């Protein structure tokens, strides 16, 4: 059988970073991968130059629908650094609470998506039900399930009451029990092991060379976590461990995220028990003096990088955002080499990108630019489950 080029993607308009993977196949083996992105480019960086800092606060939050808070945290940190504001301690703790609640809901969401990709839909139902607990806590404090609008330049907009603290701690007790169950499942369940072990290998040297970030890098044994390396918000005060594994495969990426859930719960408990008294917001000027600032945070998917250049007016001169999925794309191309087509959905899912990239699949024969058969993501997912079932694997 000759080589076949298989473009996967590009997009689903509701998601943040659709991609197109053109996969060259030799039989069922992946030989080469090409990445094409930009299908829902919204021009946010350009738009920010024509909006005030207050308006941008809400625009930045809409870069992503899942890790929206990591973006707004970066933006406020950048503006506050140039203004020279040292925000109240209580505000820092509340921001950290939101960063960790966001990580919790994102990791639960991811675990469900990964389960769905390999045809293990029970796991999907369980984790998404548990994720609702986090969503309810977010809504209770901020009024919103997503895009919490918690931050202002100089602090946070809403306080955490005694009642909230009690509810958050109760929620953590429940989630800890559930996470313990998922840990058992991830390590022992044959359904997962058969599909995740030794699949999508990313060697430590490649993770470093290709500058992979977040759980993707940590599952290859690279100890990198911006919360520890370059502490922001209240991470310097907060005890937690950086989780790494050295299996370099999809299973490692599952294990890292499940164990990180425990660390997030630990952090949230610490924050709720040590929440300092005091103000939550200080007054900030509308105009930002000339300057530049870099802020990066450990978003659920990895390092989220923001750069601000201000010019003394109330609008930014230049604002740059680099999201973790973009940083992980070269690593995905590396992971996909020499794997089976049937493993492609779970390998791509394992970096936790938007799933939009799997929307449309187009078959091109022997590198001719003539479209062959068009299948969609759902068909590819089913193909992958069937392929494994024929080889004795059962969901």
């Amino acid at each position, binding site marked *: 059988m000759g080589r076949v080029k298989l473009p996967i993607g590009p997009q689903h308009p509701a998601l943040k970073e659709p991609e197109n993977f053109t996969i060259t196949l030799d039989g069922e083996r992946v030989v080469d991968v090409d*990445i*094409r*992105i*930009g299908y829902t*480019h919204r*021009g946010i*960086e*350009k738009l920010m130059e024509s909006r005030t800092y207050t308006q941008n606060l809400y625009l930045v939050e809409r870069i992503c629908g899942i890790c929206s808070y990591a973006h707004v945290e970066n933006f406020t940190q950048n503006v506050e*650094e140039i203004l020279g504001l040292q925000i109240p301690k209580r505000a820092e703790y509340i921001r950290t609470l939101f960063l960790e609640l966001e990580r919790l809901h994102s990791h639960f969401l991811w675990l469900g998506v990964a389960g769905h990709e390999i045809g293990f839909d029970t796991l999907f139902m369980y984790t998404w039900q548990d994720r609702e607990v986090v969503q309810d806590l977010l809504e209770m404090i901020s009024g919103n399930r997503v895009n919490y609008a918690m931050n202002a330049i100089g602090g946070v907009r809403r306080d955490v009451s005694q009642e909230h603290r009690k509810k958050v701690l109760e929620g953590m007790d429940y989630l800890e029990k559930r996470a313990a169950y998922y840990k058992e499942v991830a390590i022992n369940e044959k359904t997962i092991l058969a599909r995740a072990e030794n699949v999508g290998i990313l060697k430590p040297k490649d993770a*470093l*060379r*290709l*500058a992979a970030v977040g759980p993707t890098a940590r599952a290859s044994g690279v100890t*990198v976590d911006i919360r520890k*390396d*370059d502490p922001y918000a209240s991470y310097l005060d907060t005890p937690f461990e950086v989780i790494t594994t050295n299996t370099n495969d999809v299973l490692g990426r599952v294990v890292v995220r499940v164990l990180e859930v425990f660390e997030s719960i630990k952090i949230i408990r610490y924050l709720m028990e040590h929440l300092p008294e005091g103000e939550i917001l200080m007054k900030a000027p509308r105009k930002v003096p000339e300057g*530049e600032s*870099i802020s*990066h945070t450990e978003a659920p998917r990895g*390092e989220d*990088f923001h*750069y601000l*250049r201000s010019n003394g007016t109330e609008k930014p*001169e*230049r604002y*740059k955002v*680099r999201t973790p999925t*973009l*940083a992980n*794309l*070269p690593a995905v191309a590396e992971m996909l080499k020499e794997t089976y087509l049937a493993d492609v959905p779970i390998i791509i899912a394992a970096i936790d990108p938007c799933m939009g990239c799997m929307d449309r699949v187009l078959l091109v024969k022997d590198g001719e630019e003539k479209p062959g058969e068009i299948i969609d993501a759902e068909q590819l997912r089913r193909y992958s489950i069937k392929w494994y079932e024929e080889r004795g694997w059962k969901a």
Partner: protein
Amino acid sequence: MTTTEELILEVLKDLPVQMKRNHRLFLTIPRGDLIKTMNILSSELAIQHLSTITARDTGNELEILYHFFLKGVMITIRTTCPKDDPTIESIVKVFPSAILYEREIHDILGIVPAGHPDLRRLILPDEWVGGYPLRKDWKQPAEQEAEE
């Protein structure tokens, strides 16, 4: 100052490194020295993590910032190129992770990284003919029509 910062300042002692705050170092170099500086970062400091590349329009020039991250310290290398000759050396040979970031600055600001293996568009559509959106003189098609 952390030990990492001391180490970096020692290695780069002949260069005009500016420390903006803890964990943030900036270094401005002429574009001719780009590869030389990248080699120093790669071989003498063993830096591997390129966070991203930022570029911006400063009027007559284009400014390019390479953001590296080493053990908690963000090191930014700043260089410029004139708008009428927007070429710089590609750093992909030294830092393979620059491949997408260089495509991005080429796409949105028209900076040409010489020696880049694959300069297709990254963000804008393949059939885009509307210029470089992140340059300051760029106007949205609707604004342009209104002027004409």
